[in-house]
């Protein structure tokens, strides 16, 4: 055996983190390439938010005349909420990528390669974050085109994007964890349907906080969708209360770390069963 045919040696400990990030980068690139070749998928995930935004926006236009909405139009109130809600709902499908990989031999091949479990999760979550930015810009753009106006400027929009990404990553990680544990497309659809719609409706995405029934208001306080919706609406105001924005973004960030860790742990469940 000559020197050139030897397998590369395992990387040293200090470069392992870097290797992991590099792997996550390649995996993100792989997913983005699939999306680029089949962009129809992105269009599908945008149908629902358009219905929410344009149909609900028009249907409930006069809701904003109720006290509690302030001086904004309903469309202006609704748009940031629909942005984060879309981020959550499309992230709920993130696990399907893993299920496809498991149904083929791709997951098994990856798990026997130097790619770490952390990198597999990071790759999937980073991809979802990129998709979320694109989706959010489109949904927000449609809201603005339909007449919504905000005083928050670029900073406000960036905060909306940040909240949408954090919320998307939380639900993508959950979706990946469920995929790894239940390993079936049907279960994943069930879990994501069971969670996302109730969470959207027990938040202030559609209805002003002051007008929510007490019990819904209580749930909303612990609902990450609500954290993201409130922080986004606040940041778009002319003079936002930054402590309220940062507090909720901080909660989202913390929950994201917990979920990403859980998803990485879920590989053990998968490997026990193979």
């Amino acid at each position: 055996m000559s020197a050139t045919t030897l397998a590369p040696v395992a990387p040293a400990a200090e470069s392992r983190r870097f290797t992991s990030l590099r792997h996550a980068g390649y995996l993100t690139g792989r997913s983005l390439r699939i999306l680029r070749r089949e962009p129809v998928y992105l269009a599908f995930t945008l149908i629902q938010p358009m219905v929410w935004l344009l149909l609900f926006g028009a249907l409930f236009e006069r809701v904003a005349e109720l006290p509690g909405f302030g001086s904004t139009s309903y469309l202006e109130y609704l748009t940031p909420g629909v942005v984060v809600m879309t981020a959550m709902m499309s992230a709920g499908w993130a696990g399907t990528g893993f299920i496809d990989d498991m149904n083929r031999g791709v997951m098994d091949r990856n798990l026997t390669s130097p790619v770490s479990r952390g990198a597999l999760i990071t790759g999937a979550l980073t991809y979802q974050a990129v998709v979320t930015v694109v989706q959010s810009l489109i949904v927000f753009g449609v809201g603005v085109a339909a007449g919504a106006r905000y005083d928050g400027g670029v900073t406000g929009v960036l905060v909306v994007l940040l909240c949408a990404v954090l919320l998307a990553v939380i639900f993508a990680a959950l979706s990946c964890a469920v995929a790894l544990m239940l390993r079936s497309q049907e279960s994943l659809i069930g879990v994501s349907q069971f969670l996302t719609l109730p969470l959207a409706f027990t938040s202030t995405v559609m209805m002003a906080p002051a007008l929510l029934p007490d019990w819904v208001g209580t749930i909303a306080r612990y609902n990450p969708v609500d954290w993201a919706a409130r922080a986004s609406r606040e940041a778009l105001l002319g003079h936002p209360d930054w402590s309220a924005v940062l507090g909720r973004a901080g909660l989202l960030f913390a929950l994201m770390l917990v979920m990403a860790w859980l998803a990485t742990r879920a590989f053990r469940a998968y490997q026990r069963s193979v």
Partner: protein
Amino acid sequence: MQHAIEAEGLVKTYGKGTKAVRALSGVGFAVPRGTVFGLLGPNGAGKSTTTKILTTLSTPDSGTAVVAGLDVSREPGRVRHAIGYVPQKPCFDPTATGRENLTLQGHVYGLSRSDIRARGDQLLERFGLADAADRVTKTWSGGMQRKLDVALALMHRPRVLFLDEPTTGLDPEARADMWAEISGVTEADGVTVLLTTHYLEEADQLADRLVIIDRGQVVAEGTPEELKGGLDGDTVQVELADAGQQEAARRAVASVRGTGEISADGARLHARVGNGAATLPGLLAALEDAAIPLASVTVARPSLDDVYLRHAGRSFHSADRAGRAGTEVAA
């Protein structure tokens, strides 16, 4: 390092309590470097479970395994750099081109850009995929796709290559093609190959040595020639018109001079004989005298099927059917 793979006493159980399924109960073997080693057995015998343990995908309940000189339980990270794995199910990315698939694989193993290009070209050329290299792989034929799976596993020049049923689902032509590639791979890459298969013919063709696995245990080990040579003489296979006459037929056959071991499997009777052609007339006469109607009679040189029957106590095909009908858990 004398052996590329050393497995000892591998035990694996799936599930708990009453639903527990024992997939492996003490599998052990050693694979000499630079050879093709076959793991032969029917569906559900424990071949894939063994492969999954050796490739770090799964962990054994007990037992040890050393691959390329590295303990799979203690140093899984280093084992992963030293091996290439072709799972039973296809593992290429159908939305990417052949070259894109190979490039991603090269990146994952930390190859340099120039090496990725050179190695990719070399493998595409060798597997006859160069013309299709820049086409999206979902448009490729099944045989080409499977060859890409093998090329992917070879990209980083592994020391040990695991092929889990590489030709299942391929048409005969693609299978023959794949066989040619596999037998060339030990020479071209200096790699050791562990091949699982439930095709007797495939093990016979490709494996330098093999073990026969049945119900989670190694029941025989050796070169295909040794295993077949262990059964001296030929096999006469008698297929009865009526399975109910099995006992009577067995008595009739046993009475013929020159017959050795007899085993029965439903309406089929297998008898070992010193010389098939010489024994046949007497055997037919004995069955005729006993008034036992026959569907067919065949004389054959020993095959791995006979080896299997001898060691597992049932014919390979009936075991394969049983495995397929039974739990898929160990598949």
